[in-house]
């Protein structure tokens, strides 16, 4: 079995940079739990798809052996820096790049000093692998790729991991509902900005908990549109493709607000 665990997590930096705020601290605690579960699945590599790594030409894959640096989020710069120190499974990344051709996707590796690794990828890496035990494969969110293409990206990772004998933890990084507070709020009182979107989030999470894939397949497009889900909820498409379109259920470690948007830490049962 190439995919040994799978997680959906939010890419907001707030739980990482402001953990002592109770609503975000609860999310941070859940991310810690996900990290423990990920380590227990004994992966060789963490395969991350982050909505915040935006591509418009080609499908980009990180192939730099050791991306390191210090990132400042463009919106939340007042809360400090996000350091990162990752190790790429370049063999698996290159194999994925080569294999996407057969799905009609043109891919390209990026191998540049000080390439701006996105906030979501850093948050995922720092919470889920705080000791930098595992190698990673990271791919971008091409704005022009739809649900099906994104599912195929997950599928490619799964197939190539199987071919190379890798044990993979899949991580889809992105939010649930997208309405956020545009004004400054009391962060201790953060909550989902829109009641209808809150209901949608809970409905989707309940389907995940039950492993009701048919219902999710029916609902995801409407959810993405009506709840303004981040980037069309394509991070879940990536996970679904990587899980072979199947999972038995899920544990929702936490669901909560990130400046009004919805975020959840979900561990899928394979």
């Amino acid at each position, binding site marked *: 079995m190439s995919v040994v665990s799978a997680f959906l997590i939010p890419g907001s930096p707030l739980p990482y940079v402001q953990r002592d705020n109770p609503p975000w601290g609860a999310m941070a605690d859940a991310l810690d739990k996900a990290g423990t579960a990920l380590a227990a699945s004994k992966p060789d590599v963490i395969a991350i798809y982050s909505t915040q790594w935006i*591509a*418009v*030409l080609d499908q980009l894959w990180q192939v730099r052996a050791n991306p390191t640096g210090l990132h*400042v989020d463009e919106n939340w710069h*007042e809360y400090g820096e996000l350091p990162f120190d990752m190790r790429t499974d370049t063999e698996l990344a290159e194999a994925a790049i080569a294999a996407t051709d057969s799905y009609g996707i043109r891919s390209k590796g990026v191998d540049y000093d*000080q390439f701006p690794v996105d906030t979501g990828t850093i948050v995922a890496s720092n919470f889920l692998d705080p000791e930098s035990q595992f190698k990673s494969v990271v791919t971008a969110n091409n704005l*022009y790729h739809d649900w099906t293409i994104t599912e195929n990206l997950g599928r490619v990772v799964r197939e190539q991991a199987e071919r190379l004998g890798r044990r993979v933890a899949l991580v889809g990084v992105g939010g649930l509902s997208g309405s956020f507070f*545009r*004004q400054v709020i009391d962060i201790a009182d953060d909550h989902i900005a829109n009641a209808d979107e809150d209901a949608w989030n809970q409905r989707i999470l309940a389907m995940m908990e039950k492993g009701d894939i048919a219902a999710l397949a029916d609902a995801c497009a409407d959810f993405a549109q009506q709840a303004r889900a981040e980037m069309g909820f394509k991070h879940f498409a990536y996970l679904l493709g990587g899980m072979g379109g199947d999972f038995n259920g899920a544990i929702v470690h936490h669901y909560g607000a990130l400046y009004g948007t919805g975020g959840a830490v979900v561990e899928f049962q394979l």
Partner: protein
Amino acid sequence: MSQGEIIAGLLAPHPPHLVFGENPQQNEPRSKGGWEQLRWAYERARANLEAMKPDVLLVHSPHWITQQGHHFLGVEHLSGKSVDPIFPNIFRYDFELEVDVELAEACCEQAADMGLTSKMMRNPNFRVDYGTITTLHMMRPQWDIPVVGISANNSPYFLSTEEGLEEMDVLGKATRKAIEATGRRAVLLASNTLCHYHFSKEPIPPEDMSQEHPENFEGYLWDMRMIELLREGKIQEVFRLLPQFIDEAFAEVKSGAFTWMFSAMDYPELPGELHGYGTVIGTGNAVMEWNLIKAGLAKAA
């Protein structure tokens, strides 16, 4: 202190390809040239800027996207290496710039007074976005004029286009008041492409100009229509058509810089000087200038 004023506004798009084509020392990748019409357009704009002798350049960039309000660079000295996340193969640029923090703070406060959410960016490790850097390099490669960098709040995308651009209009008015109050002679740079339909594949090499042309004919026609109106100084008509242009040509002016700049200049019905037009991976780019000194609306240095 005498009252400050805006002495010019320029539409100054930011494709990093233009820096790549120029091969400045600061940019690591090398090219055989390319996009000359646009680079020559910027040469003309640079010469005019030199003659204006501004105190400060203000740039509004669509590649510094913020959700909570309109942000302003607020650290006196910023430096680093800017690697374009979309085109890392052509833009890896060592930048170093000085910020006019006093003016930035005045803009931020004025925006807040006028009802906008606004915030100063005080983190010294912040990496300035490539849109800001490209526009500033193309306008003033010497980097010897202080700058004010302004983020693109995503209101035109989160709200409706019209609601979002109304915010940019307020931001422009706030910017003008801040410039007047601080006594600066300021040039505004709207870092926007026009038609934003682009190719999904990059030529090899990227500077192969035999592959460069408008991606979309309807978008090209829209660009020409808007440029003609701008050259004739029919600004009111441009802004009447703007939402339709944005919708049908996928125009990047949606992100707000163009509206911010014209609002700050009080929408003068003044013919713009077209320095040049060209496409970059199929998108439409015009370098245009509204020189308020030449028009008698601002004082010469």
